[in-house]
């Protein structure tokens, strides 16, 4: 009789008084937290992908490498083979580079100074200043080139 009363009491208990199924509730909470963490990670993953792609598209690493190798190789050639026209050709090179890079919204320039000559009228060394600038990067290098 007492057992029957207890059973009836449990069946009639309200949602708040019912204390069964607590493990399920705890696990549900844990899984909810994990799902929220995963959502955050997923969002970060997409963000990192977007940022990487954007950086790769806009960062002018190749332009700077290309500019530097092009200028140094050409100036070295001109210094060895055309020392008398060296300054004129540096100016011509600079004008073309400035115009071509400006058409892409960048600034690039080449300047040569401290040109040293040997007794036989050949160039022995010079300094070259290469400047590259765009809204993302400012680059400047000064190098001493020995012939």
């Amino acid at each position, binding site marked *: 009789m007492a057992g029957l009363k207890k059973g009836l009491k449990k069946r009639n208990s309200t949602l708040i008084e019912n204390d*069964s199924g607590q493990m*399920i509730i705890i696990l549900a909470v844990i899984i909810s937290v994990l799902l929220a963490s995963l959502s955050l*990670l997923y969002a970060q993953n997409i963000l990192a992908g977007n940022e990487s792609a954007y950086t790769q598209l806009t960062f002018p690493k190749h332009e700077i490498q290309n500019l530097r190798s092009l200028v140094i190789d050409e100036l070295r050639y001109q210094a060895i083979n055309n020392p008398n026209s060296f300054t004129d050709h540096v100016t011509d*090179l600079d004008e073309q580079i400035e115009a071509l890079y400006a058409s892409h919204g960048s600034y690039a320039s080449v300047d040569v100074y401290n040109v040293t000559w040997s007794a036989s009228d050949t160039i022995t060394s010079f300094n070259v200043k290469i400047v590259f600038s765009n809204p993302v990067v400012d680059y400047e290098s000064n190098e001493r080139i020995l012939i």
Partner: protein
Amino acid sequence: MQNSLLRCGKGQAFTLEGIVAAVMMLMVTYFLFHSTIIISPLTGESSDAQLKQLGLDVLTLLDNPDSESNDTLQNALASLNETTYPYGLINTLNDALPDNIDYNLNVIYYNVSEDEMYTYHVTNKAYTQDTVSASRYIVVRNSAFVHDSPFLFNESGGLESSIDSEFPVVLEVKLILWRV
């Protein structure tokens, strides 16, 4: 109170299910953490970045002033005129790029005396909306060009003998790529 939380032996399958789910979640977390350095293939920008990198790689490959091959940028553009098409360069580009990618090759140069920018269209195909461009700058001296080259710089505008043969002409080789 006999069925307290600690003494209760019911619902063991739920407990196991919870543990399995937790382990699976941890494995997925581990995978995601290690995949963040990869450019997400979910966006159009990442696809463009890959295409641009491909274009830059191909142009770098073809920029070889020391080679005597007719498919380098320097040699192909030096021998270019109205009648000579750079078949060697175009064939190499076709081989180097995947079949699902089409391209246009333009050469942009600046005439110092005229203060004017010119574009020479080596190929002129119809574009799609989503294109990516990759540029490479090269220097070719006047002496390397054929006499009727569009890139030859004749400052005086006079006879061929008066042309400065060592004048450095800077050319921007622009590869415009798109997926087909």
